[in-house]
């Protein structure tokens, strides 16, 4: 990345956020622990992890669905977590929209596409008259590659890819600044995935959007993300720009994820070994781990001693790469 992170405008800031759920009496389960990172305006920031890692919980916290138990989330410099005014809340709902994983489950099957797409407009009275509302719906459908005559149809009349387009149109019609896309392509077929990814990239460029892209698949993320955070059991273990993360992965969990991407080549696959992540290989210590910056913009979750190990490893990788 040519611009350094310092001179870029932060649109969303996650500050030492914990999210916990009560389990039984006086017991707490921490789904997200001390998440701390910024998302810059105009970028696609990917949050990658397995199920149960807390990636969706964090996405939902941004949407004000899950409350934070510690820390705060700022959007355009204003706190949006915890108690905020009704007006602020409406502002968040308008400007931060979500695209869900399963388009069949997230659309009202008894409502026409016109209603599904207009719902946000109704809630916020974002139209002067019926003509304007219909014009907006038509435009939103066109933006995602659907036709105005699809308005009168029902979700079940569409294929999976088309339904996901409706889901995207529904978010885009609000003219949001920030989109949380929670596994938007996991439920889709391979060929349709490509369409939806292309569409998301196109809309981002046209509308100057910022994405938080939640995924479990590194191969997709490499294609779409500018920066990547890897999350494991509620802890962010590594953050770097996309290229760096793939070339210089440091945390063993990142390496395990990388090794589990299947490659479309039978000869290569025969020799490729999957590396299991074994947390017991990490230093066993009471020292608290924290995200430490190892290179500008590249953070890794480590103790002081582990950090030195990563530094040695990274120097080795850099030398190796320089020699190539």
């Amino acid at each position, binding site marked *: 990345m040519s611009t350094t992170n310092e001179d870029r405008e932060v649109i969303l800031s996650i500050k030492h956020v914990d999210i916990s759920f009560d389990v039984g009496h006086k017991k707490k389960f921490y789904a997200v622990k001390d998440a701390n990172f910024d998302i810059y305006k105009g970028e696609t920031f990917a949050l990658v992890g397995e199920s149960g890692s807390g990636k969706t919980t964090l996405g939902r916290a941004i949407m004000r669905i899950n409350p934070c138990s510690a820390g705060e989330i700022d959007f355009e410099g204003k706190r949006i977590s915890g108690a905020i005014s009704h007006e602020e809340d409406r502002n968040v709902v308008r400007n931060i929209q979500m695209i869900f994983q399963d388009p069949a489950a997230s659309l009202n099957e008894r409502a026409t596409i016109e209603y599904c797409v207009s719902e946000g407009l109704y809630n916020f009275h974002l139209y002067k008259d019926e003509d304007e509302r219909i014009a907006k719906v038509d435009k939103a459908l066109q933006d995602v590659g659907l036709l105005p005559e699809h308005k009168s149809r029902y979700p079940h009349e569409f294929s999976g890819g088309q339904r996901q387009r409706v889901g995207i149109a529904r978010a885009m019609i609000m003219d949001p600044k920030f989109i949380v896309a929670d596994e938007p392509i996991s439920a889709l077929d*391979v060929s349709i*995935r490509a369409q939806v990814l292309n569409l998301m990239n196109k809309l981002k460029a046209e509308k100057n959007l910022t994405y938080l892209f939640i995924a479990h698949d590194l*191969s997709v993320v*490499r294609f779409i993300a500018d920066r990547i955070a890897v999350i494991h059991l509620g802890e962010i273990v590594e953050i770097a720009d996309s290229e760096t993360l793939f070339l210089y992965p440091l945390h063993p969990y990142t390496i395990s994820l990388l090794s589990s*991407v299947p490659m479309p*080549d039978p000869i290569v696959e025969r020799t490729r070994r999957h590396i299991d992540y074994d947390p017991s290989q990490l230093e066993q210590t009471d020292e608290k781990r924290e995200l430490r910056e190892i290179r500008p913009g590249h953070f890794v979750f480590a103790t002081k001693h582990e950090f030195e190990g990563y530094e040695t490893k990274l120097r080795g990788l850099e030398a190796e790469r320089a020699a190539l």
Partner: protein
Amino acid sequence: MAENRNVILSAKDVEVKFRVRDNYLTAIRGVSLDLYEGETFAIVGESGSGKSVFTKTFTGMLESNGSISRGSVMFHGKDLSKLKTDKDWEGIRGAKISTIFQDPMTSLNPIRTIGSQITEVIEKHQGISKAEAKQQAIEMMERVGIKNAADRFDEYPFQYSGGMRQRIVIAIALSCHPEILICDEPTTALDVTIQAQIISLIRDLQRELKFTTLYITHDLGVVANVADRVGVMYGGQIVEYGTVEEIFFDPRHPYTWALLSSLPQLGVKGQDLFYIAGTPPSLYNEIKGDAFAPRNEHALKIDFVKEPPYFQVSDTHFAKTWLLDPRAPKLEKPESIQNLHEKIKKMTDKGGAFHVDN
């Protein structure tokens, strides 16, 4: 290599129809497949291509409105397409041919213990005592990688993680030592790291227990990892089949080209990913010509008129496309999948984006 191997199951010209309201839907349109003993055959295709429906004819698990309207499925001298009742299927389904499904939570009974679900199968098929069955079940659990199997025998599915549950489903499927194991998207519902573990578990068990595996998947990355041979399905037909190397490095059908090209692993940042425009054909109407023609940018005039036959590429490689007719114009596969091996090797070698240091 094909000639000197035993065919364990042979499907010939299978056609499957479903009755939907007053209409007939032809889900499988004349598919033939010889499965060789001990091999891993993978069927790839989009949802709706018929890959699951086709293999369900091997175990008599078609939905009640579906039936085999033509063709035969020969297994040990028996035509499986003629079997009707559950009694007919006894001794075959679950005993000689087992299936693992996509979502382990829906294949396990949530209100019964893991142990009882495994022993049930063993008792039923092998007719042995409860105590012996329990012993076997625990051995099987250990074999699929469940630690403290004896302690976890009496636990319920919700106490197991997704990967562990799929291991149990595998244990159940293998507890009768089947000759053929059908894996219907066995890892689609699982995390990537768990996927890798389950795939290698199935491979290890296959080596040890010497069964034949039939994979159904939409993920070409998984196919490259597991398969000896591959069949590509589209619109209820196998449009191309060959050894795994032939399908990845020398694909001939435009649909196979399109599937390979749309892989995100091959995507270049800042450029659009390749995608297949349009939607799969409706199977309610009779399909004229090549089913893929309307979505195929390379389609010839004849593709819309006459269904192509299989053209032979090598002893093991066949493709159903008019492009292989000597009269057809010469067409190269898309640039993005040319020299595929060199490209992927570069990505996984030192300095590449998918290189992993051991």
